[in-house]
């Protein structure tokens, strides 16, 4: 039941496709409490990743994620570039040269990614950032990683969305949204939204059909 590089590459590709589709939505969310570019930024980065995906598909999962992270760092910019970049880089480093990924190994890698994001961005839970979607998602996946993969992925995606929605009423304390003070309350965070899309992409691409 281990996951192959090709399957993980499909997941990355799914994420890229959904980001492209959500480009406007993410940018609109960022207009309200940021600078109207989150969808544009993520789409620029994931489109660049897509271009090297065919090649990455040939290698190991560690390289897939490391290269994805590096590509994001060198094409996205903004806050999301280093953050998503670090996330994928840490995923890659954690997986190392493992040829196949078990759900448990994936859980460890996701944890490493999350910790990387927190170290880079210094955001805490409740600051109203992508961390608020990523943390419950990783925790839910960890909790289910020894059981059924599909179930664990579904739980992670649901937890991401829950985290995203939980901080919508909250006042932002990190990123551009924090400049708005009280006015940021009531708006959905763009980064938490793209993170939810990430976990939904993992769920839908990696789910064991049947």
């Amino acid at each position: 039941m281990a996951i192959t590089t090709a399957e993980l590459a499909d997941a990355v590709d799914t994420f890229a496709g959904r980001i492209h589709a959500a480009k406007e939505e993410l940018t609109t969310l960022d207009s309200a409490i940021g600078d109207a570019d989150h969808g544009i930024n993520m789409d620029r980065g994931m489109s660049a990743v897509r271009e090297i995906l065919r090649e990455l598909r040939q290698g190991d999962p560690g390289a897939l994620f490391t290269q994805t992270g590096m590509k994001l760092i060198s094409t996205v910019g903004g806050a999301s570039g280093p953050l998503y970049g670090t996330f994928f880089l840490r995923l890659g480093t954690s997986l190392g040269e493992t040829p196949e990924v078990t759900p448990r190994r994936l859980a460890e890698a996701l944890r490493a990614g999350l910790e990387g994001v927190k170290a880079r961005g210094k955001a805490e839970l409740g600051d109203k950032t992508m961390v608020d979607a990523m943390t419950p998602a990783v925790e839910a996946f960890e909790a289910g990683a020894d059981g059924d993969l599909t179930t664990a992925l579904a739980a992670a995606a649901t937890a991401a969305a829950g985290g995203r929605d939980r901080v919508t009423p909250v006042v932002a304390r990190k990123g551009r949204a924090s400049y708005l003070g009280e006015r940021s309350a009531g708006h959905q965070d763009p980064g938490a939204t793209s993170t939810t899309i990430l976990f939904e992409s993992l769920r839908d691409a990696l789910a064991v059909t049947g």
Partner: protein
Amino acid sequence: MKKLINTPERLVDEELAGMALAHADLIRVEEPNIIVRRDAPRKGKVGVISGGGSGHEPMHGGFVGLGMLDAACPGAVFTSPVPDQMLAATKAVNGGVGVLHIVKNYTGDIMNFEIAAELAGAAGIEVKSVVMADDVAVKDSLWTAGRRGVGGTVLAEKIVGAAAEKNADLATLAALCQKVQDNVRSMGMALTSCTVPAAGKPTFEIGDDEMEIGVGIHGEPGRERRKLATADEITEALAVPIIDDLPFKRGDRVLAFVNGLGGTPLIELYVVYRKLAAILDGRGITIARNLVGSYITSLDMAGCSITLLRLDDELIRLWDAPVHTAALRW
């Protein structure tokens, strides 16, 4: 959306191509989209670089040249540049005695510059970074991203650049930049939203009788929406929080900088300057130097910002030192 552009995707590349052609005597533009002083690197001179999202022209590219920046890294519109740019710029201006990064305090800028500094350090180049965070519209708090870097950055680049031109060392330049940061405060307001080209529509809606007080330079909505007011009232609404924050006191000498945000005609900036001078005069604060114009903009946003820098003889001397860049020259 009405803009003199071809496509949003090509905007920054084409702007840089235009700058390279117009200012070939001052700069060269290199991959991956960095603007480098023509004669860089200069052996024995600390390189001074800055960067940030595009859309704030002439900042930073217009400040590359003698007595100011050695390189600038323009990101996509309103998006921090990527570490590759800062790394390439750092290498391009490295004269062997270190490179100073002047970073505006935005999460993205901080992180991307941080990564670049790590990479430059790994490549054996000593880098120091100073973070500009002068926007009093944002509460200064350990619990938030902190204040934005805005107009004070322009003044820091000029002053630090002047000292670097005289071969001050890296530690001295970092301390000088921090001194500017410690003595500078800004605040901005918008009459209209800007339109990010790739987004194609105004970032925020605003009524014909409304304005945003406390906006940043990225079309972020301000802290407060108010009824449209007169230039005098607006000037007061910006100047008083700035003065009270540092605070600027009776007897202080300041550089008063009235800045247009991109869609504001110069005639209006002088109206604001007139009132600002009156306010400062009323508080016994002397304007020793001034700057009026659009130097740190927010695309086509109509509005202005005010920056005050407390001066001493050292800062005045460095401000007055020669500068020859596309946007500032004397």
